[in-house]
């Protein structure tokens, strides 16, 4: 569906996307994760054919993004990071005007729009102006708009940013539903729980590079282990852990021990060390993410 090889994007001296390669297969949900400024949105914009690449290969549906923009864009649905719904129009008109850009005849468009408004549960808001919609409704409308042309590939740039849990779960449900209908979906997100739930495969990016690629569950198992034991950070515990062969990391005033066998780690700590409080929790994608991108704050 998408094939990138040695893809690069520069803004003057700054390299936004630095020699990345990835393949997105038909029918999967593929995630781009990374801190702010990692190059996720830039990568999305190149896939959408709105930002030209500087180097490397990028093909969508087997077509080159530099020469076949119009054909690619016809088969693409895009939910942008920032709402660009048309504030001059109502909900219904937004979709109708948008369908025109895809040469969809008005009669057919009207049927599609009715279905889509049902799908995103905005039927009652049909004649409401965009400015009067809540954040969640706008996102749902953006999703409906992206589906107007019955796309083969959906590009979602942070589809749930700034939404309350109810609205977020609804979007997740819709994404799952779309996948089950055979859509291929590429998304970026900051929410690792979201990525873990939705993505079949994902990449973690930082400073324009892909750091790691894989299935969420496999990444967790491979780089972290299934569980994490957290203990208070004190010299005795550190000393004790150094004697064992455990993988661990010091994070502020806690120590995180990565393991597949939390019971053994617990026993070892109980037996040999003078520890404060100990917590066992499931390892998450967030642990993988922080391991690869570090804990330094990004702007």
């Amino acid at each position, binding site marked *: 569906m998408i094939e990138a090889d040695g893809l690069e994007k520069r803004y003057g001296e700054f390299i936004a996307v630095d020699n990345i390669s990835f393949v997105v297969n038909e029918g999967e949900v593929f995630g781009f994760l990374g801190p702010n400024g990692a190059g996720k949105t830039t990568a999305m914009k190149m896939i959408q054919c709105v930002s030209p690449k500087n180097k490397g290969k990028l093909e969508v549906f087997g077509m080159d993004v530099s020469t076949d923009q119009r054909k690619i864009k016809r088969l693409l649905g895009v939910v942008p990071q920032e709402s*660009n719904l048309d504030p001059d129009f109502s909900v219904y008109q937004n979709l109708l*005007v948008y369908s*025109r*850009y*895809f040469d969809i005849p008005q009669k057919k468009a009207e049927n599609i729009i009715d279905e889509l408004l049902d799908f995103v549960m905005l039927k009652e808001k049909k004649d409401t102006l965009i400015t009067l919609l809540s954040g969640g409704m706008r996102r749902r409308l953006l999703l409906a708009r992206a589906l107007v*042309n019955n796309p083969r590939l959906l590009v979602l740039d942070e589809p749930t940013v700034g939404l309350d849990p109810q609205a977020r779960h609804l979007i997740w449900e819709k994404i799952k539903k779309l996948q089950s209908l055979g859509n291929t979906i590429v998304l970026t997100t900051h929410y690792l729980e979201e990525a873990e739930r939705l993505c079949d495969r994902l990449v973690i990016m930082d400073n324009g590079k892909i750091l790691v690629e894989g299935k969420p569950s496999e990444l967790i198992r491979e780089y972290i282990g299934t569980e994490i034991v957290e203990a208070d950070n004190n010299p005795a515990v550190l000393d004790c852990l150094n004697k064992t062969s455990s993988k661990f990391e010091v994070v502020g005033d806690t120590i995180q021990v990565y393991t597949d066998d939390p019971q053994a780690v617990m026993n070892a700590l109980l037996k040999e060390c003078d520890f404060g409080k100990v917590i066992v929790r499931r390892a998450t994608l967030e642990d993988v993410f922080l391991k690869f991108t570090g804990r330094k704050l990004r702007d």
Partner: protein
Amino acid sequence: MSYFDVPKLTGSLWKVWFRNKDVFMKTIIVNFIPSFAQPLLYLFAFGFGVGNSINVMEGVSYIRFIAPALIAFGIMDASFFECTFGSYVRMYYQKTFDAIIATPLSIEEVIAGELLWGATKSVINSIIMLPIFAIFGIIDFPSSLLIIPFSFLAGLLFAAIGMCFTAIVPSIDSLNYPTFLFITPMFLFSGTFFSLSLMPDFIRYFALAVLPLTHVVIIIRSLTLSQPNPLMLFSFAWIFLATLLFFVLSINLMKKKLIV
């Protein structure tokens, strides 16, 4: 990418025109008021105010002299502001262009559609203005009817010039500069309220060389007085070439700004 690449356009650009038309139709009553009121205000202020102390200008009554200038100004005003403040808001605040280029349309087509819509605003303005002047009996018919098709070309020129400013200003506030430094001088020095022949040579030549409104006024005045000006063909050629130049330039400037 150069500043004068010939843009690749398809009929899809009219979809952008239709989008703007649809918005216009939603607020059509509000849209008509300024088109109506502005020339009337000027007509009363200058025609009856100043006109009482000036009897004749270039051989015609003062009010007949300024009528074509007011029409020309209305044409300029409509498309220039549509493609400066109007386009800037759609581009920057509403992100309308971003939304459209995610569809099969290209940025060239979006800008071309905006320019054609700007020109259409000028045509609409001239259609609203002509009956007002006709009621006062200060423009001649049927020659004045030619103003309607001509206003599309003239409107396109000011739309394209405006779009160039939209592409280069750093913020919407900076659009006040072309208004003060370009529109206002043209309003005064393009043979609008007094004959160019009364001006010192350098202003006259300057107006003929670089102020587009001068040429628009020459043509419209020829039409409203049904007296062809000897410069009429030259003015038409000037407008035609300048329109072509700024049309292509504005599209390339916007492409450079938006496609990074």
